[in-house]
């Protein structure tokens, strides 16, 4: 069962997304801010990380950079989630080291498509 780390500060979003992913068969662990997210990402092995970008303590871009730095050669797919649907966020997220990007509100099917694509690529 693929293990996903969901880094999201908003309680409702966290609850909703984790429940929906769980029902789709993922094992979901949660972090509530950037700092905790980095700690968990470095301490555990996840198959994929869903990273909100506007986080307290440490924003998603910086958190992503730290995870990448901490992991060195190891590559865990990270999907950036942001409420800012404006163009530019995607580039910023990619520049910070994310593998893909999705806007909130989450369209579950679209997100699942992106998750599966990355997991498949990771397995190859």
């Amino acid at each position, binding site marked *: 069962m693929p293990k996903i780390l969901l880094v999201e500060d908003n309680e409702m979003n966290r609850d*909703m997304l984790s429940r*929906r992913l769980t029902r789709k068969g993922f094992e979901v662990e949660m972090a509530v801010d950037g700092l905790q997210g980095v700690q968990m990402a470095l301490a555990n092995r996840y198959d994929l990380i869903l990273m909100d970008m506007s986080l307290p303590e440490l924003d998603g871009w910086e958190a992503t950079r730290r995870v990448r730095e901490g992991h060195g050669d190891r590559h865990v797919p990270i999907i950036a989630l942001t409420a800012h649907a404006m*163009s530019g966020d995607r580039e910023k997220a990619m520049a910070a080291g994310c593998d893909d990007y999705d806007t*909130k*509100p989450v369209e579950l099917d679209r997100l699942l498509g992106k998750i599966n694509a990355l997991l498949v690529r990771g397995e190859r």
Partner: protein
Amino acid sequence: MKRRAAAKPGKPRRKPAARKPVNGSAPRRQAALLRLSAEIAAAPSEAEICRAVVHGLRDPALGYVFLGLFLVDEASGDRVLKASIGWPDVPEEWRVHPGQGLSERPLRDGKLRYTPDVTREAGYLPSLNSGSEVDVPLLIGERVFGVLVVESNRKNAFRKNDFEILTAAATQASIALGRARLLGDERRRANEQQAVLDTLADLSGELELGKLLQAVLRRATTLLGVSGGELAIFDEASNELEVVASQQIGVDSRGTRLALGEGAMGHVARSKEPICIAEYHEWMGQSAKYASVDVHSVMAAPLLIGHRLVGVFALTHDDPARRFGPDDIRLLNLFAPQAAVAIENARLYTAAQRQKQYFEELVQNSPVAVVTLDNRHNIVSCNPAFEQLYGYSQREVIGRNLDELISTESSRSEAVAITQHVLAEGAVRSIGQRRRRDGSLVDVEVLGVPVRVEGELVGLMGLYHDISELTKARRTAEEANSAKSQFLANMSHELRTPLNAIIGYSEMVEEEVSELGHPELAPDLQKIQSAGKHLLALINDILDLSKIEAGKTELYLEEFDVADMVGDVVTTIKPLVDKNGNTLVVEVGTVGRMRADLTKLRQMLLNLLSNACKFTERGTITLQVNRSQVAGGGEELLFRVRDSGIGMTPAQMAKLFEAFAQAEASTSRRYGGTGLGLAITRRFAQMMRGDVNVASEPGEGSSFTIRLPADVSAVGGDGGDGGDGEVGRPSEGKAGMVLVIDDDADARDLLRRFLESEGFGVAEADGGEPGLALARALKPQAITLDVLMPGMDGWAVLSALKADPELAGIPVLMLSMLDDKSLGFALGASEYLSKPVDRERLRQVLGRYRKDGDCDVLIVEDDPATRELLERLLASEGWAVASAENGRVALEALEHHTPSLILLDLMMPVMDGCEFATELRRRERWREIPVIVLTAKDLSAEDRRRLNGGVQGVLQKGALSREELLREIHDRMAASVPGGGR
């Protein structure tokens, strides 16, 4: 004996006298003649000579008893009696008018006339004694200027030897009188000159025109001994004379205006030659305006300066006995030029006075505070607006130092710098704060201007315009704008987060209710979901539009495959197409790749397609994509979305692209949507230098076409916003890309040509918003920024650039007509150049930011003045020069340039010289670059330790002449570069 003929009746009579022997013996006569000659020769004046002649001839040895000597008055032609013997009742200076008397005859032919019997002559009056008379002319050359009259009361009293004696005496007299007259003329001329000089001296002191004119006239009448006169000045504007002074001509003619040619003065004004009129009342040319004057003869003369007519004056005699003659004209010719100059001076002075008064009025009533200073910056005067602005009275401030008076602690140095700059270089405009008398501060725009009189700097003038209100308004507007931006950012987050939950939970529950066996609840949950999504779309659109309008929308340009992008869009829109039972036809030609903002283009296509879906039911929607050549070069892509829907009227189309304007208000309720989609689509298209057009007929469906350049980065600008025409396509350059932001197409073109010739690539933007978008898209090497632009001005652009962490590092060169250096630097400009731009200066400045090649010398110096000085000095020696304002910037510069030498200041902000040197030595490839420290400070032991031998030399600022500095640089380079030096 006979009496002189033709004396008027009533004139005094001569009594008959006894006949004396006319002639004595010859030797006695000879002796008498010699005595006569001696006396004539000894006589000092005309009058004495005349007396000597008649007295000499009265000598008993000669025996003449009745004698008279007349001289001719040239002006009147009268014979005037100068001396006589034997005519006891005749008055001195008795005049015989032309046409009267026997003594006139020699005047006509210059010959002696003998009349043996006067009673036989015409005009002989019987009441007078009868006898004989000899009339002898007095001649100078051929000109008769007098006559000697000798009478006898006997008939036939004179013989031939009498004629010889009298002729000899007349000749002697003529010579003596001629000489005396000559001397007298000279003396008189000298006197006249003196009089004229006196007049001039007097008159030149009088500069008030009215008084002067009266004085001139008085002087002229005195000088010429006339009864009256008048003076007119010439008015060039109306081409008329105006009488301005008048004296004793029987009327007050002041104010009379005469056309050229009218009356005596008008005549003279036209001919510019003096005129003498003997009998004014008989003169044909007289003006009706002078019908009642009481004058007899008139002389008028022009007042000329060179050939220019200044005025005319006329002099008059009321005595019929007096005439004007050549002497008067001569005198007038002496006097007139002096008078003309005096009048002209006075007129100029009066004009200057008026001018001065005019300007004083302007300054006094100006709403702008004006203060004038002497060369030592002390106040000379100020106007009421200045008093009001600063609360000082003029009396309090005169003599005080302006900068000490109104500058504040913080603006003191700036104010002093302005003053000095004005004195040294010229006008300065600046914005700053000044202190009022009560200590309160006021925001002012300052204009300092040097005051030069005939090239000599005599002081300066300060103009202060109170801009507190403007500044306050601007501050408020900026605060409001920033509050709005902040609000938008917050709203984005705050609104979307709960919406996220609404949409997400409804979706989730919908899935769950089906699984849990309550499918009847699903439609309600779908309604919640759909309403949430609509709300989200609204929020997104409003945010997009607000961002566009705030100039905060950014372009992210990337290259992508057009067909792939279209495929993606089609997939996304498919559910919406199906919803109204529509069919989507996609026709994509050979479109290849394009460079544009992918996200925005997708959004634009989705907007058009979803509109088409909404307004069409069970119809066909066609998406066509084509690539074509553009007339002006380059390629463009056309995206056409056609539907078979309800269509629009022209009136509806006109409002189509306005925000919040759906074709009808009711449309919104029927078809949904925000009404913002098309407005956003068009704005996006314009940002990418394209556009959206529409064609439609009601009931026939609509066709929307998006037109975009195939390479958006090849063009810049937001065509929707007041630019002035085409914006040139970006060019490549090995020195890097410079972004030119200027609303003036000509200015951009000039800069482009210059920059390209310098090896830079150039991108252009015709306004602030497109400029910012391009800066974000292109990350240019440097930006040149015009200050005065419509809409978003240069200051706002500069602030926005410096507020964006990704753009803040790009050097910005402000180019402006206005001299607001201090404001420019305060806002973070790297350089501030005045328009028109000095190309040499621009080349030097840009040299710092070049990407390409090696530069010879890198100057690391924070003080702009010193930096510029060094740049100029080294550039003049043919070195390529780059500069950096601190160590950090210098390290960045080294990434692009590898200089042959670094000139390093020590005390700098951000990263000082010691730190820089340390960093420099850390990198392998920079370790060999020689470094010369150029510092104003004495190096401490600590400094030396920190430099750690990492530099090749330490030079004291100001201690070296430029030659020494250059030699030092030469030597260091020669030492470090193999075969180096120049």
